[in-house]
């Protein structure tokens, strides 16, 4: 067995109510590491042959919660949620912070595989080797904060009764869904704590379809032993020392990006990306500190960065809104993208979204999309159930978000996500609404534009990514460079926070991997032999798609049309992505990744990587 792994995975079949332990071969763990990579492998093995027929929201889908060998050791542990995505119909490795991954590994599991579908609401309760599927009808229908309160109370009571002599229990770590997930909204999240969420992929809806309200885990053991503990400790110390010097996120949260790279570099979505520039001085991070922050240092277990802050609106019409930071993405998508330029309005929106269990980025995108249609009089008040969707009106946007989460009226259409909503509304209005939808392969673009060319994403970042518009997994050239998707695959497969890789040495993460697992790994080997396998698997499953949606190779590898409109204002006025340059670069990327002219993985590439069965499935797509 490779060191650094707990060695077993928990498989829970909700249809039969049975649980068992599963193990994977060393070769599989070596090649796919964990998290996103392993998720792609497991999904291909279990669903590969019938991928096109498997409904993302049906009982046949497999929901995965996977850690990696570095979770808990690398500062800022996370958990990777995956499955067949109801958004892109491919595989998305969606990670969420918090203690869940660490607790799970301390309980002796490397991950949880959920299959089947329960008839009544349940939650999984794990205490070391004790696994129980318990009734959750009490929590079904409750919002995020109520769910957490009820679940914490129940679990603590349970632990106290079972282990009366132990003393005070620290509450278990939990993942749960809000009302949005229960109502199968495609932009629903798997949430942790109040405001942490695995948003991309829409796995909240998958959890809801399985009637799995929550998972609570309490581990009292140790983390799986590292191969070289002394070296690991030294590396952790080195990383922490580096982070302590970096004040940007420690002091101001990731929202400082909202000003430094977003607003100043003209790459922040404003009014559904009609603009990427604003000079509202009311929206700088310092305003958040003065007006809404009640706690300045907050981090999850073992994280030196502490980019989280606690924000509360104490007076005024949004009184009682609680959320964390809000981080950069939410400041952009639930602030500027909706024309909201006050911290209070932004915190209010974020808190509503958290409560409903929606994804801030993608719901912000849908809301912006609807508001632009209202602005252009394509949607009128009657279509929106009487809501006047004016830019900047946080209260109305909050009402619409509630409609989306409960699938009421127009919310039922918008709950399908930007891409599907654009198709549906387009059919209703008999016009092409896709130019207003800023998404890539069903997944909303993160709040980092490509038009000004000053932010980190490249012009092909979203078009070629196997996770669509996911801003934490952007494609870039060269393939073994720092901005390449293969490096993101390492973060999501080792499963730790990608904010903790900034400013470390080039090969730091591979050294860390060696210290924990004892297996030597070079950047070259990772890129050419291992990560590329995950990339090909993800690409193959994305292209297979189905059953309700199928991406055309090449034709769908494009930027949203909005990115070709010139920027209307700001210091980079008139700049836009160049169509011919994009085309050229996509061709280059296909070549580098071993795909043919249509973007389908070549037979030679797949066979060279030992993915012969994938090659069989790709044969139809090539013609």
């Amino acid at each position, binding site marked *: 067995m490779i060191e650094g792994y707990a060695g077993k995975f928990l498989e829970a079949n909700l249809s039969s109510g049975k649980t068992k332990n599963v193990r994977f071969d060393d070769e599989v763990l070596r090649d796919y590491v964990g998290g996103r990579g392993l998720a792609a492998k497991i999904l291909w093995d279990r669903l590969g042959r019938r991928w096109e027929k498997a409904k993302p929201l049906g009982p046949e889908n497999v929901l995965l919660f996977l850690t990696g060998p570095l979770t808990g050791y690398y500062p800022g542990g996370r958990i990777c949620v995956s499955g067949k995505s109801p958004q892109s119909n491919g595989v998305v490795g969606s990670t969420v912070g918090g203690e869940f991954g660490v607790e799970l590994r301390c309980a002796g599991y490397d991950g949880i595989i959920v299959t089947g579908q329960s008839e009544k609401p349940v939650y999984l309760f794990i205490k070391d080797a004790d696994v129980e599927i318990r009734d959750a009808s009490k929590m079904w229908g409750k919002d995020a904060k109520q769910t957490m309160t009820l679940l*914490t109370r129940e679990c603590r009571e349970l632990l106290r009764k079972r282990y009366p002599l132990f*003393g*005070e229990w620290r509450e278990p770590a939990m993942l749960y869904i809000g009302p949005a997930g229960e109502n199968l909204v495609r932009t629903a999240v798997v949430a942790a*704590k109040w*405001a942490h969420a695995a948003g991309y992929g829409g796995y909240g809806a998958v959890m809801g379809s399985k009637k799995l309200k929550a998972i609570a885990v309490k581990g009292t053991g140790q983390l799986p032993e590292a191969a070289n503990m002394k070296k690991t400790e030294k590396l952790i110390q080195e990383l922490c020392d580096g982070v302590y010097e970096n004040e940007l996120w*420690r002091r101001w949260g990731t929202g400082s990006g909202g000003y430094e790279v977003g607003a100043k570099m003209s790459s922040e979505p404003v009014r559904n990306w009609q603009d990427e520039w604003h000079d509202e001085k009311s929206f700088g991070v310092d305003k958040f500190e003065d007006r809404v922050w*009640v706690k300045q240092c*907050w981090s999850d277990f073992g994280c*030196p960065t502490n980019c989280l802050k*606690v924000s509360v609106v104490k007076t005024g019409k949004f009184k009682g809104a609680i959320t964390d930071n809000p981080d950069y993405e939410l400041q952009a998508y639930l602030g500027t993208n909706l024309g909201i330029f006050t911290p209070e309005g932004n915190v209010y929106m974020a808190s509503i979204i958290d409560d409903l269990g929606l994804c801030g980025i993608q719901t912000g995108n849908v809301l912006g999309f609807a508001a632009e249609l209202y602005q252009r009089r394509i949607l009128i008040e009657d279509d929106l159930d009487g809501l006047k969707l004016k830019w900047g009106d946080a209260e109305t946007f909050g009402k619409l978000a509630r409609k989306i989460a409960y699938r009421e009226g127009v919310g039922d259409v918008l709950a399908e996500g930007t891409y599907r909503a654009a198709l549906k509304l387009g059919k209703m209005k008999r016009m092409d609404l896709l130019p207003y939808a800023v998404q890539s392969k069903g997944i909303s673009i993160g709040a980092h534009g490509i038009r000004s060319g000053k932010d980190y994403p490249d012009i092909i970042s979203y078009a070629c990514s196997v996770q669509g518009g996911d801003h934490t997994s952007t494609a870039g050239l060269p393939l073994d460079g720092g901005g390449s998707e293969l490096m993101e695959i390492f973060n999501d497969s080792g499963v730790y926070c990608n904010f903790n890789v900034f400013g470390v040495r080039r090969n730091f993460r591979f050294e860390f991997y060696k210290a924990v697992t004892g297996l030597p790994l070079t950047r070259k080997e990772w890129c050419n032999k291992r990560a590329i396998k995950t990339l090909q698997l993800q690409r193959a499953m994305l292209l297979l798609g189905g059953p309700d949606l199928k991406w055309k190779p090449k034709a769908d590898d494009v930027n949203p049309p909005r990115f070709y409109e010139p920027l209307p204002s700001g210091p980079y006025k008139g700049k836009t992505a160049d169509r011919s340059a994009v085309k050229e670069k996509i061709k280059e990327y296909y070549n580098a990744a071993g795909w043919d002219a249509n973007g389908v993985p070549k037979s030679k590439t797949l066979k060279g990587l030992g993915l012969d069965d994938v090659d069989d499935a790709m044969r139809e797509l090539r013609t």
Partner: protein
Amino acid sequence: MLVPGAEFPHLCAQCEDYPCVRACPTSALSVSEYTGAVLVNNKACTACGKCITACPGRVPHMHPIEKRILICDLCDGDPQCVRVCREGGWNVFKKVTRREQTYSLYARKPEEVTQDLCAKFYGEKGEDFV
């Protein structure tokens, strides 16, 4: 952390009257003369749990695998938690010399502390979360 955001260290406050030491039936607990911390004699401890009930803050807890109690021993006068907290620049923890003070006031149950913190952070609604 019963409520997100309201985390706090739940540690021994070294009350002057040491109710846990007095409650111990096997004399496994003693007080360090140098630091004032409660020391556990692992061999003598029978894991009866009487010290947990005696403690006003329910601070001691059982070792999850072995049969013995865990109480903060202040790392023999060089607390590592204080070291890392200083190093990280959070400056929440501080080393102080023992003074004339009622230290048992700091020994509180997690629910009570959380309630106070919630009211402070989240306003009047905060107490409902506990």
